[in-house]
């Protein structure tokens, strides 16, 4: 293997003895930044989870007064906002950060300082968001979708302004990260690593990064318009001044639909890395998975109005969006079949990482299939705004993204920390999580079909049994995560030391030590 040294300086003088915490605070090392993303976002995931448990506590009986209608709306709004922007997206970015440069044989990302700034915007955005609980009127309560006029002047308080500002900060972080990874992946692959030899996580991160750069500015625009309507007397969304509430919905969903692909694509990539390793054979249909990810990214921009089927848009317009939405099912289905094909004929080892990856395929499928019901307009008119949508969302985001994230955490923890997580406790975490996850979210399909509306803090008696089951399960699900946290805390210090390659991985990160040296590779690998 010839070695073309790309970087000129990989030896650096030992740092004058700065305390460890200062090193972390000022680091531009993608590996440390990745870990900081993962830790911060996981903490925020638990906060978002706490909000969810408060919601489920309210819903354990039909007419509870544990939370007022107002408080409940804030919980629902902030649960979703935290989970989307402060948990799932940054958790996935954490993996991009840690793994992508290693996977392509680079020493770092293209712009390490921008990378650091992008990370620090995450806690800043979170602070702004949480500050909103303390303003008069409390946090924003219009749902994470914040449709005006409810989110506009006169119907809600300053919590919405804080929500907007917090999202602006988080959006900038997202854009910076996206830009960084596009440049890194396109320009800094090791010699001989063509796009078609690049690991699939890099493909999915590349598509995700394009989505972040292209779609997030539209979110920034529409948020600013709402801020202006609320504070500077403009009338983008106010009918009395010639504005239109529907304009918000179009612009908001123009970003927020690609956002759901931002939230799932890297998880597809993680699964595509893990399954081949534990199956002992190559990924099935590499090109199909790569290009179907691109197809999903592109199609994701032209389906936004499927969130608006009940708004009274003309049938012809809705029909176009319906056909495009159904089309997206095809590239997604292709992936599921490819993953099964990856397991077929293998020699399958069940570690916690592979268990989570397998569970991802099994349960994300349910989320994808429920989406098919929602794609058909007449059926959607029956099921939208009900718990059926809540079921769909949580199957794709929890049974999908989060299971993928857990798979990645168990898989790369040894590489990140140099220690092994405890496999037995990992399996306990796994089985409790997927059982309680299904018991929490599956009945929501049924509730939706029965007509239970979403965002209701109290409900009619016929919905009581299923809600009770869901609430109890959700508490179990929440508590089970502490098993993972305890495992992480213990193992980071006292876990079995990890070898370079505990799993038999085939990608570049397993050729170096666990954790890797600061400069990643002594010599940049070449695939020529």
């Amino acid at each position, binding site marked *: 293997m010839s070695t073309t040294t790309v970087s000129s300086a990989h030896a650096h003088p030992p740092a004058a003895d700065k305390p460890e915490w200062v090193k972390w605070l000022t680091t531009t090392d993608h590996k440390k930044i990745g870990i900081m993303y993962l830790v911060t976002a996981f903490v925020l995931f638990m906060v978002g989870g706490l909000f969810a448990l408060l919601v489920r506590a309210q819903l354990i009986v039909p007419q509870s007064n544990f939370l007022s*209608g107002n408080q409940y*709306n804030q919980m629902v709004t902030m649960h979703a906002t935290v989970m989307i922007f402060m948990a799932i997206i940054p958790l996935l970015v954490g993996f991009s950060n840690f793994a992508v440069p290693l996977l392509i044989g680079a020493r770092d990302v293209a712009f390490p300082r921008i990378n650091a700034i992008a990370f620090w915007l995450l806690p800043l955005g979170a602070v702004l968001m949480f500050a909103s609980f303390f303003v008069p009127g409390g946090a924003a309560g219009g*749902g994470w979708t914040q*449709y005006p*006029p*409810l989110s506009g002047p006169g*119907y809600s308080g300053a919590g919405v302004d804080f929500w907007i500002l917090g999202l602006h900060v988080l959006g900038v972080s997202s854009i910076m990260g996206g830009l960084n990874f596009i440049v890194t992946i396109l320009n800094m692959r090791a010699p001989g690593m063509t796009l078609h030899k690049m690991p699939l996580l890099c493909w999915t991160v590349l598509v995700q990064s394009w989505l972040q750069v292209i779609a997030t500015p539209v979110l920034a625009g529409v948020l600013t318009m709402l801020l202006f309507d609320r504070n500077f007397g403009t009338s983008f969304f106010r009918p009395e001044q010639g504005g*239109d*509430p*529907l304009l918000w919905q179009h612009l908001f969903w123009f970003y927020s639909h690609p956002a759901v692909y931002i939230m799932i694509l890297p998880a597809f990539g993680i699964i595509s890395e893990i399954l081949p390793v534990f199956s*002992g*054979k*190559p*990924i*099935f*249909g*590499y090109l199909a998975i790569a290009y179907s990810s691109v197809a999903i990214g592109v199609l994701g921009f032209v389906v936004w109005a499927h969130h608006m089927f*009940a708004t*009274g848009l003309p*049938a012809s317009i*809705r029909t176009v969006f319906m056909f495009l939405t*159904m089309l997206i*099912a*095809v590239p997604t*289905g292709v992936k599921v*079949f*490819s993953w*099964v*094909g990856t*397991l*077929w*004929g*293998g*020699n*399958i080892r*069940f570690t916690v990482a592979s268990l989570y990856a397998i569970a991802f*395929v*099994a349960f994300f*499928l349910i989320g994808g299939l429920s989406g*098919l*019901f929602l794609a*058909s*307009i*007449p*059926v959607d*008119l*029956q099921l939208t705004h*009900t718990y059926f949508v809540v079921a769909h969302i949580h199957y794709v985001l929890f049974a999908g993204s989060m299971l993928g994230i857990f798979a990645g955490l168990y898989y790369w923890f040894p590489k990140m920390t140099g220690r092994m997580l405890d496999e037995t406790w990992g399996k306990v975490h796994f089985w409790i999580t997927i059982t309680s996850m*299904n018991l929490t979210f599956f*009945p929501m399909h*049924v509730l*939706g*079909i*029965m*007509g239970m*509306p*979403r965002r*209701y*803090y109290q*409900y009619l008696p016929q919905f009581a049994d299923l809600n009770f089951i869901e609430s109890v399960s959700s508490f179990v699900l929440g508590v089970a995560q502490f098993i993972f946290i305890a495992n992480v805390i213990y193992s980071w210090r006292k876990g079995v030391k990890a070898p370079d390659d505990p799993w038999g991985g085939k990608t570049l990160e397993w050729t170096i030590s666990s954790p890797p040296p600061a400069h990643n590779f002594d010599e940049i690998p070449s695939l020529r």
Partner: protein
Amino acid sequence: MFFPAKWPARAVGLLSALLVLALAHPAWAVGGLNNATPIADNVDGIYNIIYWITLVIFVGVWGAMAYVLIRYRYRPDRQAAQFHGSTALEVVWTIIPTIALIVVAIPTYKSIRYLENVPKPDLTVEVVGHQFAWDYKYSDLGVSLYGAPWIEAGGQVNKGDVLVVPARKVVKVLISSKDVVHDWAVPEFGFKLDAIPGHVNQGWFFAKEEGSYQGYCMQLCGMSHAKMLTEVRAVSDAEFEEFIKSKGGKLAPEGSAARAEEAAPAAAVEAAAEVPNQVAAKPSLTSEADLVKHGAEVYQANCASCHQATGEGIAGAFPPLKGSEYTTQGDGSEHVKIVLKGLQGPIKVAGKDYNGVMPAFPQLSDEDIASVVTYERRSWGNQGSVVKPDMVKKLR
């Protein structure tokens, strides 16, 4: 390091059993919800097609996975097969889902068209949402109902007014909001439509049977969103008539608005505003009788709204034509010019001041203008001159 091989198999078996049990829950039959309208039946049909397709895919994938996880679980002596893919397989599993989607799309498309074309309604109701109740106005019957948030207190639910409709009749609803975005939904009808302020949306339903049907607000609208419930009660025709009468309204034959007020001008305008069904043959209008007769029709369509059928106008707003110097004096050219070009600014009519805006009517034909001007100059006791179409033509 690896789990004993039997566990995954057992776990898969257990989970599958649980899921099958869940799928057998009767609520999957569209939630055990009563299909109360043909639209709901329609939706049910499409839902079932999708359900079977997804069930096949689900069982297929889970079956394959269960097989694979058991058959290919780790054994130290096993060699994993090193294939990268199979073009044939990839083509097959791209085409089959596409076909499945087409199968879903066809009845779906038909259903969309069915919903979009509102049939001739037997009843029209304005549904207006506001924080936190629904108000209903029976447009042609003079009845308005006001809802209230459904608050449960001491085992009783205060429902406010429910929407009473005749069963087996096409009901068109015109949905809007007075404040924020709401959504009017009746799951048993398969009905859902947003109420957006500044917009009006239209939909329709046909209740197959008498009964009470639960309605909800389905768009987060504030703190009492969960209290913005409603009910649609479908009743027999006789009961419906009773109900309308009890609310002070009047069932009227299709096509005219019978309102509870004495609205003489309005009713007169309505009654007279029937437009003949054939294209009006252009009459040769030269005699005063012909001009006045045609002029009456043009007047009802274009002038009576403001100047009133009695020609008396509305004090302070629209000047009278009866006894006005504009309609009784001169040769009519001033009068014609006003109709042709409009008039603005302060004027005095019959000793009173007016300062409104009279719109222009250049789109009316010479014959129409001559007729209506003549009508105005020769009605209500006015003894003004007759005006012929060629004068109008010259004054354009």
